[in-house]
């Protein structure tokens, strides 16, 4: 899932200060699951904004609407009526959702209500961890199912750096060193010999380093 965190109220208040009728759009998929931008969080933000503006002696009307996914045209179009009825929009979706809404309604300014963080998973209640950097060239079968790009601060592919100690990362002693984890897992499986092999230079162009990415599936095109 894509994980996000709500932007601080102060930042959102500054962004939308000139407006007195705002549509707040929630997204029903990833950001609902991670409690950052679903229907509930859209309602909380609406209440916070109204309270803050009332305390500041300003008038503010909020509309709210949440759709299944903000990253697809057919869902985003459901906002049409409410968009027509507001001055501006705060999208609580991930960056993909915000851009879909902005493109669908080009005459309205769309503000991001969350900061999109990463593709990851809820490790336990209240804790989300990064798992994938969308490199476009997966190596998980070689590294015991643990991603050295998402989880090693230096994206190393030939083993740990010189700062890994006691299973912890050089960057943050609260974080696990994924190379310790990879080592432990391959040891358990009797596959340590896999780590003796030198992995050659990577082609990073399949990831974000290759520029704006598009996936074309001609077999799917109408």
């Amino acid at each position, binding site marked *: 899932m894509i994980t996000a965190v709500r932007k601080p109220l102060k930042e959102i208040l500054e962004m939308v200060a000139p407006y007195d009728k705002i549509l707040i759009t929630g997204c029903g998929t990833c950001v609902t699951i991670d409690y950052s931008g679903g229907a509930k969080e859209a309602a909380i933000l609406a209440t916070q904004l109204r309270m803050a503006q009332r305390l500041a002696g300003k008038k503010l009307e909020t509309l709210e609407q949440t759709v299944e996914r903000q990253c697809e045209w057919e869902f985003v179009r459901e906002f049409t009526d409410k968009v027509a009825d507001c001055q501006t929009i705060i999208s609580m979706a991930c960056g993909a959702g915000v851009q879909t809404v902005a493109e669908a309604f080009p005459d309205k300014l769309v503000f991001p209500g969350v900061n999109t963080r990463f593709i990851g998973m809820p490790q336990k209640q209240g804790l989300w961890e990064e798992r994938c950097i969308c490199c476009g060239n997966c190596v998980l079968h070689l590294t015991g199912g643990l991603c050295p790009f998402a989880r090693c*601060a230096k994206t190393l592919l*030939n*083993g740990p750096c*010189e*700062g*890994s100690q006691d299973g912890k990362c*050089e960057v943050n002693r609260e974080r696990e060193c994924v190379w310790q984890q990879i080592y432990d897992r391959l040891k358990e499986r009797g596959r340590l010999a896999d780590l*003796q092999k030198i992995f050659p*230079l990577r082609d*990073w162009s399949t990831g974000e380093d290759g520029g704006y990415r598009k996936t074309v599936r001609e077999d799917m095109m109408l």
Partner: protein
Amino acid sequence: MKANSGMEKLLAKEEFVVIASIGIPRGADLKPLEEGYKLLENKVDAFYIPDNPGANVHLLGLAAAVHLQKLGGETVLELNCRDRNRIAMQSYILGAAALGVTNLLCSTGDHQTLGNFRGTKRVYDMDMVQAIQVLKGMRDEKKFSNGEEVPQPPSIFIGAEVNPFADPFEFRATLMAKKVEAGANFVQTRGVFDLERFGQWMELLRQQELHQKVPILAGIIPLVSVEQAKDLQQAPGMMLPDSIIERLESSDKPEEEGIKIAGEIIAQVKKIEGVRGVVLHADGVERLVPNLIKQGGLSSKA
């Protein structure tokens, strides 16, 4: 001989090599470097030049190396994977070789968030093993990393950073073996304080006969204060026993005690089979090196 390197020749002659790191200026001025050089001139075999250490901006290592070589010193120049992609890395290698810098030490590099430029973008296009492999490919196969021909291959004696004090401990020998397989001609360790652990690591290497494949140079850091020792104890990848801090604390002259400790460590590592030299990390306190050489029972190079 792999390269026209004085250090390679000394190591081939079975000499115990003494390298000293030199403080790299943080301004656009070579004078501090010259001052460090004067303190170390004719006392060591080569100068180690760190590459933006601690992820902080310093004067370009290559510029420092070229200047030191003009003054008459041999250099070992660090080349980290943090700051350069494969284009910059290979261009730097060509530039270094063309300017007569013959010893490059490949390292991963301290992570950028540990320095004073936290918000910078990371590179790590290649990891250290890959950087060594690319360097060897340029030198021996006359090929850039993309297979294109290098018109004039760089003559470089290739070094690799290794850390006996990092984990997973048992994996460290395999990791060094990968660096050697990739093309490392010598390795340089992090600062040694924990001799027990260092001995265990050397034992691991001997089991794989790695000590016979490449010379191992041990890092030595002369401690000058209790604070420095405590900071180093907390630094990633370091191991510094409490007993050393206690010795500094109970001394009236911690700097002298620090030199004494470093001298004892040098004497100990020198006895270990496979250790072929030391790298004295006295950046900014180069004045301590002559005494350190004496305390460690190292021969003066003059």
